[in-house]
């Protein structure tokens, strides 16, 4: 039993150290206390599908270059069983998967997170290769005539390109144009014509960023270099003025996807947009700036794990508060925190619903198991298996009926669910359904409160970016641990004693 003095000193010390460190870091490193403005993050998934022929397999995907307007904040290649490396070829980054032996249908993903950023810049110099120097006859003559007809009408590369597009899209179609279009696709022709006229131009492929689009393909466009930057043209209609929703994917390499050792390969793109704290993205992108001994120095994946881990003490505080100050009974002391953690992934309402559903079905099955006369360990193991079964069926059904929320149920920790069912079931047998209701709803209430607190952007921000504030949290928990006053529930319990 520690004396009051040293105990309070310890609490004050912890709280002060935590608070002072936080303020210091705020002042010194400019870490804001509030999450600040929210930014839209584009998540692009490139999905590569092919049929492997059953031997060494290599997949090379061209990756978006540095460019104006967008900044890559995170990229994750996914390919189970594949070796992976980034490589540079012809001025563009490429993702390279390889596997000694692959057969059957293969699926690889390249996940990319981008934010719109006006300060982002592309390469300073324009590089382009002349795709074609000489044309075969009769195309050489046709092309030359076409160029000669527009050069007098233009002042520079841009206007020449504009004139060319105009000529090519005029109806009735110019005979030279129709001859050339028989031989070349429009974007290629356009780029080649510009090249023949000594205008720096290249054909590129872009991705249209639009929220919620699936199975998209790249679109072919042409860029013309002038005044130190690239200008984008749609060969069918003219210059593209607004490039803000276009992501430049392929510029240098003519091929976006190369598959060696596979057939029927294709790449499709799905795009979603999310809202996130702008601050968290700056940090993720510039880990070098942060102090060495900090969570930012961890790889992005570990960081996101820690974002959850650092929230646990907040949930624990809620449990402590609800137990000591309010007196809510829960089934399993810290089970509510784990449930709350699962809610963070599933969102509240689907989370609560699926939790109730699984526990209810589990209780039904458990009541049958109790008739089988099993030993405890075997019974729990059975229950774990059954819970996984329930979750699988639930996920498949909800997916079939297009209810995506059902899939998130897998975020619940199975063992915890199984134990919850077991405890509830014993409680039911021994203390009756009333106690099950009391403890079950107690757990859910505490879990919900913990979730609501842990879900606040400010709380998330502080917990991750100011880990030292956990010392203050610790001080608070210590203080609560020495609270000898009545619990709220005891004021009810001793109601008759309150009377004289």
């Amino acid at each position, binding site marked *: 039993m520690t004396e009051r003095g040293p105990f309070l000193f310890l609490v004050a010390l912890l709280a002060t150290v935590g608070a002072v460190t936080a303020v210091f870091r705020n002042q010194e490193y400019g870490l804001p206390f509030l999450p600040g403005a929210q930014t839209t993050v584009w998540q692009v998934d490139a999905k590569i599908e092919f049929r492997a022929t059953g031997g060494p397999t290599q997949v090379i995907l061209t990756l978006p270059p540095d460019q104006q307007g967008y900044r890559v904040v995170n990229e994750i290649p996914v390919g189970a069983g594949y070796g992976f490396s980034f490589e540079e070829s012809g001025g563009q980054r490429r993702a390279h998967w390889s596997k000694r032996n692959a057969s059957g249908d293969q699926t690889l993903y390249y996940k990319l997170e981008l934010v719109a950023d006006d300060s982002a810049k592309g390469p300073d110099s324009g590089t382009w290769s002349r795709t074609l120097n000489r044309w075969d006859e009769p195309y050489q003559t046709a092309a030359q005539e076409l160029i000669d007809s527009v050069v007098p009408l233009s002042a520079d590369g841009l206007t020449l390109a504009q004139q060319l597009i105009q000529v090519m899209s005029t109806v009735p179609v110019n005979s030279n144009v129709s001859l050339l279009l028989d031989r070349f696709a429009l974007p290629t022709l356009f780029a080649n014509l510009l090249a023949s006229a000594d205008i720096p131009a290249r054909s590129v492929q872009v991705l249209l960023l639009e929220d919620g689009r699936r199975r998209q393909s790249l679109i072919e466009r042409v860029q013309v270099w002038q005044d130190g930057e690239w200008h984008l043209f749609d060969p069918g209609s003219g210059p593209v003025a607004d490039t803000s929703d276009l992501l430049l994917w392929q510029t240098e390499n003519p091929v976006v996807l190369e598959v060696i050792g596979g057939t029927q390969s294709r790449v499709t793109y799905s795009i979603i947009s999310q809202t996130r704290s702008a601050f968290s993205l700056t940090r993720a992108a510039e880990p070098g700036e942060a102090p060495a001994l900090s969570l930012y120095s961890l790889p992005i994946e570990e960081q996101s794990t820690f974002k959850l881990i650092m929230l646990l003490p907040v949930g624990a505080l809620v449990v402590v508060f609800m137990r000591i100050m309010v007196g809510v009974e829960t089934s399993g002391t810290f089970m509510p925190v784990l449930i709350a953690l699962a809610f963070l992934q599933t969102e509240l309402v689907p989370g609560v619903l699926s939790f109730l559903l699984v526990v209810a079905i589990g209780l039904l099955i458990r009541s049958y198991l109790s008739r089988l006369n099993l*030993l*405890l360990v075997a019974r729990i193991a059975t229950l774990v298996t059954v819970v996984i079964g329930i979750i699988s069926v639930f996920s498949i059904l909800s997916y079939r009926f297009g209810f995506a929320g059902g899939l998130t149920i897998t975020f619940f920790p199975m063992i915890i669910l199984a134990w919850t069912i077991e405890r509830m079931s014993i409680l039911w047998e021994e*203390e009756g359904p009333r106690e099950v209701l009391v403890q079950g709803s107690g757990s859910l209430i505490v879990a919900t409160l913990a979730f609501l607190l842990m879900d606040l952007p400010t709380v998330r921000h502080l917990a991750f970016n100011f880990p030292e504030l956990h010392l203050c949290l610790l001080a608070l928990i210590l203080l609560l641990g020495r*609270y000898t006053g*009545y619990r709220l529930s*005891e004021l009810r319990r001793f*109601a*008759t*004693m*309150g009377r004289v």
Partner: protein
Amino acid sequence: MMWANPFRLRRRGVLGMNRRNIDYIGRYNDRRYYPLVDNKLETKLVVRNAGVTVPELLGVVRTQHEIEFIDVVLEPFRQFVIKPAQGSGGRGILVITGREDDGFRKSNGDVWSLRRVKRHLSNILSGLHSLGGRTDVAIIEDLVISDDTFGDLSHEGVPDIRLIVFRGYPVMGMLRLATKASDGKANLHQGAVGVGLDISTGRNVSAVQFDRPITHHPDTGARLDQIAVPHWRELLTLASLCYDVTHLGYLGADLVLDRRRGPLLLELNARPGLTIQIANHEGLVPRLSRIELLEEHSRDPGVRVEFAMQHFVHHPYRGQQSLWESDTPAQGSTG
């Protein structure tokens, strides 16, 4: 009134859960002594050596294998109780009051086959009824036959007496009566009736069920205001003796009165509940503080019991004042 005023509760000296845990259990109960009271078999063996009377031990089942031969073990007995050594809150206790052709008659009249009893034993061993689901052993002991005084006070089950023993002094007592709601168990959580007992006399103070005052037993209709527990001083002494055996400063002792053998200790509890205050309509804190103020503690349970019987007298309206106003014996004691 639905809610109590916390300041009034405090004035009345009502002990809350947090304060109990920190100021009494945390301060006076050394954790290393817990295993002794958390295991009924060990409690039984240890207190028996110290001269505390307990229900006779008929057998112990330690392994699943032994369950196969349980019918041989049970052969000589018609009435017995099977309980988990580490069960809590009266869980897993099977009371057999007689034998039928096809099995064992339970206290509530149901008949259980041998197979069912074996299954129950198996559940006990695998820890179904035990704290934290630990593997356990099953104790078979003699059935306690309730003392005639208690007559129809209890619905099935034997009434038991809970005494809070603080540093060896019995400070508060309560008679617990099983009801239909509590399924024959003397567990207040499950709806057993608690009747507060005056430490100085062993007479009833007031009665509660589900934390609310009552005057009659909900099932038997028996009056709850005419109770005087016999062998009172003996009961207090027995409980007081447990302190010397267990070294636990804040202890709950559960005792019963057997028709043939008198006061017996059933089990001990290192975290006794707080409802006893409602049953006594009095807070524990003043009595506990009174003991803490003592400069000398007697090693003799008899002396401690005498002190308690002199000082912890229930006065409906004077309440706790008597503790502080004088040290003179307030009321005589009955044996």
